[in-house]
């Protein structure tokens, strides 16, 4: 296909140019620079002492990193699907012409606004067996009631998932709501004529239409999966032990507290490779499809 540069096209290109420059310098240039650091012995400050794959070898010999990766998968799957489903349901229910829509919307969104340092603490208290729910139920008379996931190595990650869903699903709701509001009302009419139960309309008609919105939500949620660590810090600090460590926290700890940029960047690079591996097939498909459309 030919792309001559004429007026509006030129304007489009000129406008996008600065962003391309930003993308190239920041998201490519700076990233490559950072990746390069993962092959050095950089500590607190970047240096150029090349050590080959040493950092990677150490990385994958570190229990904490392995546990982190495992947690990221568990967390990623549960959190992403949980937030998507809850967010979608909230959007759907709010979209039923309810009264006090603003109230509900704000309630579902507010966790997004409050610093997790404090709301995480509230969750921590609530889930702490000695302070929160378990204690309350016991005081209320059910002496043997036990809910100690937060302090249980095998379950603590689920409490993090829980709180993370609580925090993120409001945003998904907002995105979905925007998508739902964009659906042509005529489509709804057609489904009513076809005699389709509402839930199936959502399932078969609306969700496909919301495809791009869902994609956006998935990316947003994956971002929290990959980059998120404040939730972990606030709720468990990675504990008990290293049971709820996540890769982002590993990277940041080594970057900020442990002054080992090299290792941190090795971790970050591995995470980026994972992301690329996840994105590449999608981009490829997009590209092939595009090519097919001329």
């Amino acid at each position, binding site marked *: 296909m030919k792309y001559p540069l004429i007026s509006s096209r030129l304007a489009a290109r000129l406008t996008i140019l600065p962003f*391309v420059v930003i993308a190239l310098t*920041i998201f490519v240039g700076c990233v490559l620079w950072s990746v390069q650091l993962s092959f050095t012995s950089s500590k607190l400050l970047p240096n150029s002492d090349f050590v080959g794959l040493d950092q990677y070898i150490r990385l994958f010999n570190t229990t904490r990193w392995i546990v982190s990766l495992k947690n990221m998968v568990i967390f990623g799957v549960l959190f992403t699907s949980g937030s998507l489903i809850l967010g979608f349901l909230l959007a759907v229910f709010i979209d*039923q012409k309810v009264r006090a829509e603003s109230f509900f919307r704000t309630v579902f969104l507010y966790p997004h606004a409050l610093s997790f340092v404090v709301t995480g603490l509230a969750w921590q208290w609530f889930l702490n067996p000695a302070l929160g729910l378990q204690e309350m139920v016991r005081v209320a008379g059910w002496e043997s009631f036990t809910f100690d996931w937060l302090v249980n190595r095998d379950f603590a990650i689920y409490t993090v998932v829980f709180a993370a869903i609580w925090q993120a699903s409001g945003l998904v709701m907002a995105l979905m709501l925007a998508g739902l509001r964009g659906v042509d009302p005529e489509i709804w009419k057609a489904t009513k004529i076809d005699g389709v139960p509402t839930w199936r309309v959502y399932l078969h008609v609306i969700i496909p239409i919301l495809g791009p919105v869902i994609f956006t939500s998935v990316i947003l949620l994956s971002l929290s999966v990959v980059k998120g660590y404040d939730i972990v810090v606030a709720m468990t600090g990675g504990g008990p032990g290293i049971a709820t460590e996540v890769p982002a926290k590993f990277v940041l700890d080594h970057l900020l507290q442990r002054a080992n940029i090299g290792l941190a960047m090795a971790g970050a690079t591995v995470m980026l490779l994972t992301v690329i591996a996840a994105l590449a097939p999608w981009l490829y498909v997009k590209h092939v499809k595009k090519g097919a459309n001329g």
Partner: protein
Amino acid sequence: MMTMTQSTSTPSLKKPRTIISKERIAIYLFLIICSLFFLLPLYIVLITSLKTMPEIRMGNIMSWPETWNTDAWVKAWSTACTGLQCEGVSVGFWNSIKILIPSLFVSILSGAICGYVLSYWRFKGAELFFGIILFGAFIPYQALIYPMIKIFATFGLYGTLPGIILVHTIFGLPIMTLIFRNYYSTLPSEIFKAARVDGAGFFGVFFHVLLPMSTPILIVAVILQVTGIWNDFLLGLIFGGRENMPMTVQLNNIVNTARGAKEYNVNMAATFLTAMVPLLVYFFSGRWFVRGIAAGAVKG
């Protein structure tokens, strides 16, 4: 069956239309139960902020405050020490606003324009550009800060207000581009075509035709960016310089002390106070979530 009728007609008195049908009750029940789940931590935050420290130390976290005590709120807002200054979180309020408004504007506009170009003005490498941008979203920004500082310093932007606006724009770019691109891909492309035939150029189409159709996604963008920019303090600290320190620095100083004594009530109040701006935005964003954004535009 949930009522999804799109009618704008005013129901006459005669209509006994399903005001309290079973479905309605179920809907409200669901929403209320979810609200309770969502509000639980807020309850803890609020009641804790209304207790005194001894009561917090002694009592049950879920229990009602023995005496209502708003001292923590006053303190959080105007007297808590956040370093040498003891003026609470209020100090940085205007700085935050000063950062928020231009950053919000520039970052959303940038994202919207990138999304617009990616949806309608395909250029060679557009997919790659989008891929890079998307991938950029996943980079922990701490990993980028060193080289960015160097670049910013070279251009004299380091430690300035434009500098911090640019930083927010850069870090907001991936998400903003993503949401606008995906949103525009759902709009009927005929409208874009019609505008071009009508003689609208690159910006004409965007500002006159697409932007007015973008309200729901704009508000999502606003929600995301208001929250992100308002809650940031690290980028502000590093790139914004001392004159432009946002209110969250104060919040962080109150909440985040490692070894100092913790005043949970003040922490909670301060957090809540700091979040007021995003919360207000959330609350009043509703009327922009309009229905049927492209209704009547095309046939087919």
